[in-house]
């Protein structure tokens, strides 16, 4: 399989994740869609690492995984805090920080 197949698949997954971020309004699902986009980026990094024949892209992918885990932890903490304070779990309702 050519590496370009993986890259096109990665573009497709990234576009799917972006579509989800635009459509959905539950913050939990938006976090899931961000995971989709990060994983699409990971797939592209690993594919380029294979195409170049060195492993540095895989180290990048690992660091992306760590950053994604941090983002999940903080995002889920925010969602739990919102739920505790009975704020509606709808990103369109949270507009107090808007300038």
């Amino acid at each position, binding site marked *: *399989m*050519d590496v*370009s197949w*993986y*890259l*096109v*698949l990665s*573009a*497709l*997954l*990234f*576009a*799917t*994740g972006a*579509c*989800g971020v*635009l*459509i959905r*309004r*539950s913050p*939990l*699902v938006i*976090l*899931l*869609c961000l*995971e*989709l986009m990060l*994983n699409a980026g990971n*797939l592209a990094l*690993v594919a380029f*690492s*294979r195409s*170049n*024949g060195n*492993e*540095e892209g*895989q*180290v990048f*992918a690992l*660091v992306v*995984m*760590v*950053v994604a*885990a*941090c983002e*999940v*932890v*903080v995002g*889920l*903490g*925010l*969602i*739990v*805090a919102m*739920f*505790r*304070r*009975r704020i509606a*779990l*709808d990103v369109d309702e949270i507009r107090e920080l808007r300038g």
Partner: protein
Amino acid sequence: MVEVAFFAGAIGALGGAIAVIALNNPFYSVLALIVHLISLAGLFLLLHAEFIAAAQIVVYAGAVMVLYLFVAAYVGGTEEPIAQAIPGQRFVAPLLAAALFVEVSIAVVGTSLASIQTEGPVIEAGFGSPGSIGRLLLERFLVAFEAASMLLLIAAVGAIVLAGRKGTGTSASGPGVPDVDRGEIV
């Protein structure tokens, strides 16, 4: 054989991704994301990234998704309102996503990089194994490795501060907010 494995993984990953954004219940979306992550780990194996594939399954599909499942179960199945906040959002957003896909595909396929039209160079046996990745992490990318561990620590402390219960120090509830702790009810 490789083609069959690639298309099986690609269909799993794409189907999981579409299910994540199409299913109404967040709980099912999380389960669909697990399917997506496991298919993606298969694709990583095809690209000779064994350690990344294992980390993907153990860390991502295992630990992180369990966290998601707990929060989805805690928050409950909040159905999204049918009414659209922005008129035509359901129709315009897929169009924008399709435009993004076409743009990125043109950028990738139309590039003059000759190496992406091949399977990649011949690689030695240990490519992507835990040993070689670990050596790379601890020698060449040591600073990035330490920074990542620091980031994980800060994120863990931040999550405790954000989601901590009332009475155990820093609470999320500020002044002027009715103090209702849902933890007592649940």
